[in-house]
């Protein structure tokens, strides 16, 4: 009784998780040869086609050429009538119980089957998506790491530039130093010569000034008081004459 229920529901539910140990006795019978074929071909997604839940489609196809479309149905009807009339299948209280339970089970599976299947599929999808994400992340990271390594190698190739720069610096410093020394020598010599010239000029100037002072002093001391009075009187008369001539000029 219950075995038939299991049989029915197993055929109704859509393909459940292919990942997992559920479909152990599905076509893994490909292990016929001693060598295992790897990778193993994938499991079929859907079960074989059935009509009315438990009669395989192949049976109908088998009888179609001889008896047409109604053939298998006639066969089925005949079989049931034979079983009932010959009392090979006895109707008793279990029959009614079986019919009721069967009806309920068929109704439940037809109603809720697809949603349960979708739920199971979704669980599986999540698992696969998680692993797929891990895989993608790993792949991008590896590619990135390879890129980085190549870039670092390219960078290392430029190392000679550093040493060129250093050697340049050293050469420039040496050259600068040399030039500075040359300049210093020249400037020092110039300074010494200029000092001599400046010294000469100073001497000359001092001599000149001294002589001028001395001449002035002697001239002033040689002016006697008599000469001074005479020169002052002459100056006054000159001034008076000048004033008269200027006044005359101004009147005119």
């Amino acid at each position, binding site marked *: 009784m219950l075995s038939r229920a299991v049989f029915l529901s197993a055929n109704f539910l859509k393909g459940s998780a*292919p*990942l*997992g*140990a559920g479909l152990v006795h599905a076509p893994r019978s490909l292990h016929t040869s001693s060598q295992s074929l790897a*990778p*193993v071909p*994938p499991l079929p997604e859907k079960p074989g086609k059935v009509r009315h839940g438990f009669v395989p489609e192949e049976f109908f196809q088998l009888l179609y050429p001889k008896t047409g479309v109604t053939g298998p149905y006639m066969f089925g009807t005949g079989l049931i009538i034979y079983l009932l009339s010959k009392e090979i299948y006895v109707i008793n209280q279990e029959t009614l119980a079986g019919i009721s339970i069967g009806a309920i089970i068929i109704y439940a599976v037809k109603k809720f089957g697809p949603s349960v299947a979708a739920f199971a599929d979704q669980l599986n999808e999540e698992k*696969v998506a998680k*692993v*797929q994400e*891990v*895989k993608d992340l*790993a*792949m991008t990271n*590896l*590619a990135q*790491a*390879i890129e980085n*390594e*190549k870039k*670092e*190698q*390219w*960078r*290392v*190739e*430029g*190392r000679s*530039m*550093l*040493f*060129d*720069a*250093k*050697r*340049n*610096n*050293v*050469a*420039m*410093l*040496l*050259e*600068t*130093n*040399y*030039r*500075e*020394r*040359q*300049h210093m*020598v*020249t*400037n020092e*010599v110039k300074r*010494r*010569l200029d000092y*001599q*010239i400046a010294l*000469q000029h100073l001497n000359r100037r001092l001599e000149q000034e001294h002589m001028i002072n001395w001449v002035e002093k002697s001239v002033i001391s040689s002016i006697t008081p008599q000469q001074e009075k005479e020169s002052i009187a002459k100056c006054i008369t000159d001034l008076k004459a000048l004033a008269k001539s200027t006044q005359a000029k101004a009147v005119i």
Partner: protein
Amino acid sequence: MAGRRAALKAIDWVAFAERVPPNQRSMFNALKTRSDAISAKLASLPESPAAIDWSYYRSAVAKPGMVDEFEKKFSALKVPEPVDTQTAKINAQETEANKSALAYIEASKARITKYEEELDKFKNMIPFDQMTIEDLNEIFPETKLDKVKYPYWPHKPIADL
């Protein structure tokens, strides 16, 4: 002595800057500023000092022999060139750097081959919907359930579920 004008190689600072990794950028900037300062100083000094006008001094200075003596001594004087102590050290540094660079490149290449191996493993993996649990455990060993340490389902500590 002939190394006075020892070749100043033109350095392409732009290309150099590209090759500097970010963690050494400050050192590179310091080097660049130093180099620029040195070259600016060099450029500011004229190449040879201004010549001394001996005839003017000869006519101006009263002391008879002094100018001639100065001139003689001055032209006889040779300014010694500064000695180059650093270039040998720099060359030694360069050879050392070359060695370590080669070693680094070797190690880098080894790393690249390892990465490429793993990348190939991922590329040639069978798609997930054709895998079994055994296949998954092979490829990602961390998914393998330890049935010895945790003999009862779910084969991992409850906290890890």
